[in-house]
């Protein structure tokens, strides 16, 4: 990473300040993790429920540091030809056809098959050189001169084989291409892995990473986040909204509202020019933050109580 990035990541307070300026409110723990990740040159494995800002963290890091974000979305069946590199077959084929005539020139003056082969061997690897290499996200991240933020999103969705394949890049920041050899990072990238915990990651992977768990924020932090993301919202409404959402999280729901949904809701309330959180307006906009019919039913039952409590500021 560049010199000036080193300055930006010089202290934990600096990181907190900078991230907040970029629109991401991070608590001390997250800032400490970023600080250590930079200084120990370690990838960060971010776990936590959906929608707490795991991916956002990487995006903000790229924005804050001013380096490109390279994203690799994981899914079942992802393999190295999609994640690491692929040969440009078409180009290889085209070049062999074009260069067919050149072959005579090269072989001019050789006697017999063995001599021709020996001459050809001098040129053998040109079709498997980096000119014919199509870099995919992982390789691309290593090749960035300025460094990059590499986001390996939802790594738990990938297969175990792929997870094992990641180990090399995570521990040494290098990859092996059989035809070429080992390619190391020009500038070590800042690596984020996110996981929704649909399956337990392997010990080996965890060992190579710093492990950050982001839970749902407490009401103070959530108020702060809303303030940064939707600054136009009035203080009163923000307090009521966060208090209501925090109460909803306490209920037994299939899917509890995430931070991103709280932000969406705040935006909607702003558009509707709501001045305070009345049961009617909640009823109208409830589908913004609840995505299951059953959940909506559950919340409806307690709606009046919770709205009352939110407005009274308990």
């Amino acid at each position, binding site marked *: 990473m560049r010199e000036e990035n080193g300055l930006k990541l010089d202290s934990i307070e600096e990181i907190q300040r900078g991230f907040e300026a970029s629109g991401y409110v991070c608590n001390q723990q997250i800032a400490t993790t970023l600080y250590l990740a930079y200084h120990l040159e370690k990838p960060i494995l971010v776990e936590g429920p959906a929608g707490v800002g795991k991916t956002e963290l990487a995006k903000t890091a790229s924005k804050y540091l001013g380096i490109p974000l390279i994203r690799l979305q994981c899914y079942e069946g992802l393999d190295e030809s999609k994640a690491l590199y692929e040969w440009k077959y078409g180009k290889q*084929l085209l070049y*062999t056809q074009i260069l067919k005539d050149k072959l005579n020139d090269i072989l001019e003056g050789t006697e017999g098959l063995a001599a021709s082969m020996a001459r050809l061997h001098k040129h053998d690897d040109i079709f498997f050189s980096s000119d014919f290499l199509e870099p995919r996200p992982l390789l691309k991240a290593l090749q960035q001169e300025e460094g990059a933020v590499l986001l390996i999103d939802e790594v738990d969705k990938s297969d175990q084989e792929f997870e094992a394949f990641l180990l090399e890049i995570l521990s040494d920041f290098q990859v092996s291409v059989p035809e070429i050899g080992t390619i190391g990072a020009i500038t070590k990238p800042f690596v984020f892995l996110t996981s929704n915990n649909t399956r337990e990651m392997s010990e080996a992977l965890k060992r190579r990473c710093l492990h950050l768990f982001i839970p749902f924020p407490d009401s103070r932090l959530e108020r702060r986040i809303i303030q940064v993301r939707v600054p136009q919202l009035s203080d009163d409404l923000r307090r009521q909204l966060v208090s209501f959402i925090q109460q909803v999280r306490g209920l037994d729901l299939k899917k509890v509202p995430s931070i991103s949904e709280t932000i969406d809701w705040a935006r909607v309330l702003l558009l509707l020019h709501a001045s305070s959180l009345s049961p009617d307006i909640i009823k109208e906009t409830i589908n913004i933050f609840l995505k299951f019919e059953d959940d909506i039913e559950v919340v409806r039952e307690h709606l009046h109580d919770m709205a009352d409590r939110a407005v009274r500021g308990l």
Partner: protein
Amino acid sequence: MEQVLQNLFDALRRSGVRISLSESMDAMRAASLVGYEQRQILKDSLSITLAKSRIEKEIFDSCFDRFFSQDGFSDPEAGPPLSQTTELSEEDSPLSRMVISGDGTGLSMSMRQAAQVVNIAGIRFFTQKNLYIHRILKGMGLEGMDRDIQRLSRQDDMSSLAKAEGLKEARDVLFEYVRAFVEQQFGLFAESATEKIIEKYLRGVRLSNLEQRDFDRMHKIIKKMVKRLNDIHSRRRKTSKKGCLDLKKTLRENVAYQGLLFEPRWKAKKIDRPDIVALSDVSRSVEAVSRFMLLFLYSLNEAVARIRSFIFCSNLVEVSHVFEEYQVEEALERIQSGTGLGIQLGRTDYGQAFRDFKEDGLGQVTNKTTVIVLGDARNNHGDPQTDLLKLIQKRSKRIIWLNPEPPSFWGIGDSEMKKYMPYCYLVKECSTVRHLERVVDSLLI
């Protein structure tokens, strides 16, 4: 400080947090980077480098707090009480001096040093507590203080006697503090105590402790089992030369022949995941082990992507969606009570179960499907319908039957196990995790 961190790692390991050498080195580097001034930052730094899952983070938090908790001496409110009037004299031992001058930090340091010398990290049993208390007190120089008390009480001026009384009192307080300290260290380093934290955590979930521990182990075993099933599948497929043309590979391989398609390459579809259908008996005859079997089913559902689970008693219903939607305790409860599933909990009828399965599930059974049946095969003297099992066997890759009863009971009474056996690839007794382990091992063949 390094030694202190080492002791912390030790305590964590004993509490069940797995810490590798590289992780402990990371933690040390992290600690030296952030410094020791701010407790919360140090705690966060160690937490992200050492604890790599939610449970581990919880254990870490409690361990860290206990490890770096204050002892009685460091608490400025409660220093050893001694009347301020007493004066120091040349003859006083170092310990008495510290007590008289109220040097809490010094006392704390001296206690910790003494603890280090007697290797408090080696404490394992609660019976050792007294031993360690006395050794630490001795290390701090209690003998000198005792001599002071004796010497002072032999003199007859009032101030000396008062001083002796004061020292005696302070001695008791000292004893109390050291006892509390040893108590706390015991909590950190002895296994039985740390077990308690884990158990407390486990009690939070509604599974019984035993079940939870089984469940965790089961996860590992099932992962292994899935891999075994995988291996059997994949190996078969690799030798096949059929498939469609793999254009990319062909081009790559034939670059050497001037782009002439001299040596075609084939794409063979590799099957990586086993396809499993599980049928579990939930009738009263298997009541004792049914939770175990359902736990097994649940963890199987978590590990295998393509799985359909059925339960049966008088009839058979699919429960895959229950496993997917709910957490383990709730899923088990729902299945055991049969809420909203439409299962009839009357007499067990294997014949009917197979008939229902033929209707609902057989369509999706292919020659790659492994059918796992969990049940005691006690059919209440009904028609066993072996022809249906034969049909399932023909359609599927194999049938594995796990019976909670020991083999000597098979075929006795209304057990139809002997009749079903010929159609099964593997029949094993399975009612504990240990059995399950053995079953998985025998799958290696």
